[in-house]
């Protein structure tokens, strides 16, 4: 079997070497996946292969694409291959589409400008492509009129229109919920089944498992393990790969659900909410007891976060009411946000932000240090701006910030969806441990049903069909 693409000793340099020599070959009909965390160098490796490294970085080594050998140190020759031989499915494709162009025109551009077809021919071919992807009706629509999944398929058709047989998919499932993730995987696998070449870059273990084919695991710029996906994932040789697989919520040890005790301190009765004329949910009842962990799952856009915000009184319900029993002050009800950097003031240091809080509520500043040690946060991080620490660290700072107020209720809105697997496990473990210790009730929202199953005492499942299942306590 001749390889579509062979990378030989590809290295990337900034000032020092940041990607160690990496070699891989991509065969028709066999997906190749690079798995790694944020900062592992997987995207840089792919960009070096594509010839699209950002300014300030340079590559060495060589790449053979469709029988043509390119030296990366020279850095020329890629351009003629882009679109015709090799193409990229961008991250979050709905942002990559031109918002002012209709779907068919976006795809036809590839046929017109890359393949040089006439306008009529290009439009006809684009229409056929869209019809093949089940988008025949959407060809006249603007990206804003498409759903996320449809936009992804349009971007895919556009990426393929130049005739490229090799597709590089950069984090194709980023920001997608489970149902749409499955659609994307099916789409990519279909391409492979037709004999195309597919190089996927991802941090998503489930995606890597589903793609099959060959797998390379990257850590700190080094490919630490490489081979057929079943072998690598079934019998990992490297300690890091084993750690990564263990960090998958499916492999977490089962939690010990507790039975709710004590009088409820937060009660929602018959709560309903609509958004943009659409009913999200109605007649929702929930009693939160001290110290219990309630998991919330459901597809995106079904109102999970909205429900949490209503419980926190950040949003008023359209119907029903929310009561706080037991006379707890408002600051005992807190929230953890999905995107940690957006939850801190951008231009002041973390020390300043935390000391402001201590001063405002007359807290004991001596509590900060032990709590930081508990959250495994180095004191030096205090003098940085929120943008200068990692997402996992910042989320732990967010936890520190709310724990200083001794909350009785914490709404954790997808607190780990932007974090890597291992960081996610650490974060969730700390959250559960500290909440149990301090009898703080937690309402945790996640799109990952497995994660919710492992950590929560009971679950609420939003089905997205205007009603919801309330799953009763797992343990009697």
């Amino acid at each position, binding site marked *: 079997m001749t390889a579509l693409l062979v990378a030989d000793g590809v290295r990337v340099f900034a000032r020092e070497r940041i990607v160690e020599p990496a070699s891989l070959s991509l065969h028709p009909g066999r997906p190749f996946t690079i798995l790694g965390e944020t900062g592992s*160098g997987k995207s840089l490796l792919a960009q070096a292969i594509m010839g699209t490294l950002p300014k300030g970085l340079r590559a060495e080594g060589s790449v053979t694409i469709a029988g043509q050998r390119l030296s990366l140190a020279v850095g020329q020759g890629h351009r003629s291959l882009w679109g015709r031989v090799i193409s990229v499915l961008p991250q979050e494709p709905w942002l990559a589409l031109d918002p002012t162009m209709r779907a068919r025109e976006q795809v036809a551009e590839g046929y017109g400008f890359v393949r040089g077809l006439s306008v009529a021919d290009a439009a006809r071919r684009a229409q056929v492509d869209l019809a093949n992807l089940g988008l025949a009706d959407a060809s006249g629509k603007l990206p804003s009129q498409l759903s996320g999944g449809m936009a992804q398929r349009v971007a895919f058709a556009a990426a393929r229109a130049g005739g490229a047989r090799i597709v590089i998919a950069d984090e194709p499932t980023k920001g997608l919920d489970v149902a749409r993730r499955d659609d994307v995987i099916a789409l990519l696998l279909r391409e492979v089944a037709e004999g195309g070449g597919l190089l996927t870059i991802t941090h998503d273990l489930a995606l890597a498992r589903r793609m099959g084919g060959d797998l390379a695991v990257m850590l700190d710029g080094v490919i630490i393990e490489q081979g057929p996906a079943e072998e690598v994932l079934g019998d990992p040789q490297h300690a890091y790969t084993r750690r990564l697989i263990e960090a998958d919520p499916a492999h977490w040890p089962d939690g010990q659900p507790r039975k709710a005790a004590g009088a409820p301190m937060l009660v929602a009765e018959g709560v309903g909410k609509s958004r943009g004329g659409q009913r999200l949910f109605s007649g929702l009842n929930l009693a939160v007891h001290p110290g219990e962990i309630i998991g919330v799952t459901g597809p995106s856009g079904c109102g999970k976060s909205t429900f949490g915000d209503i419980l926190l009184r950040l949003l008023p319900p359209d119907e029903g009411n929310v009561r706080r029993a037991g006379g707890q002050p408002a600051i005992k009800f807190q929230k953890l946000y999905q995107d940690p950097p957006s939850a801190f003031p951008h231009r002041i240091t973390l020390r300043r932000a935390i000391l402001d809080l201590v001063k405002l509520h007359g807290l004991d500043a001596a509590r900060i240090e032990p709590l930081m040690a508990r959250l495994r946060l180095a004191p030096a991080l205090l003098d940085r701006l929120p943008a200068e620490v990692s997402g996992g660290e910042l989320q732990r700072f967010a936890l520190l910030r709310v724990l200083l107020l001794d909350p009785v209720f914490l709404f954790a809105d997808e607190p780990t969806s932007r974090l890597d697997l291992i960081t996610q496990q650490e974060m969730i473990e700390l959250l559960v441990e500290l909440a149990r210790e301090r009898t703080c009730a937690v309402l945790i929202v996640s799109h990952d049903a497995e994660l919710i199953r492992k950590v929560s005492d009971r679950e609420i499942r939003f089905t997205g069909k205007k009603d919801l299942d309330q799953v009763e306590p797992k343990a009697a």
Partner: protein
Amino acid sequence: MMTATMSSAITASEPKRLPVGRIVGFTVLALVVLFAFLTPLVWPVDPTKQSLRNVLAAPSWSEPLGYDHLGRSMLARLAAALRLSLGLAFLSVLTAAVPGALLGILAAWKGGIVDRALSVLGDVFLALPGLLLVLMLTAIAPDSPWALYVGISLVLWIEYFRLTRATTRTLITSPAVQASRLLGFGPAYIIRRHLWPEIAPMILTVAAFGAATAIMAIAALGFVSVGVRPPTPELGLMMTELLPYYEEAPHALLQPIIAVFLLVLSLNLIAGRKAQ
């Protein structure tokens, strides 16, 4: 995500490029200000005192910038005119920026009817050509610098209002502000820690442009003899007065022109090409 973190790490580790333009701008402005305010201390000459013996005399050691057509000291007059322009520009920028920014925050924060009312008010002022508004006010109250000042401020505040309102609107709905509110912080804290650090750099830029606009407006009005009246020294007025003598005394006419040029140049350099 990888690329973003890598490239930001790279740019952060490089030494920050000095904004040369800004440094030059601040230096030129400082020199002009020093000239305007130190001259009366070291050279206490009355800018309105005439001596017809010296009419249009060239610069000399005893009179470094020469005399104008009425034999008045150009040095004293130029310094006095600069003090007037700088003072008026500073005052009008201040009185435009403070209420403009505060109203902008108020409109974005309260939303609804308050926002709509303030926005309509801004649109009304914007619908009037700025210079016309100033002309009207100076016509109502001739020969009074305050009319100039009020007129210019009334034109300038809208820019601060709109800028602050737009920035505040996005910030106020951000998770960061929501988190601060949940943590018990009040509006004063949100303005100080969330809004002000984002708005301040933009305000500096707009203020520098605004000051340049004000100086140009004052000079333009002086030039068409609408602003302050003789014998008060004013840059635009000095240009008009000295224009007939450009052949005999080009040095005299050039002085107010160079002064306006330096002021506007330095303020534009400070403002930079665009806000952060």
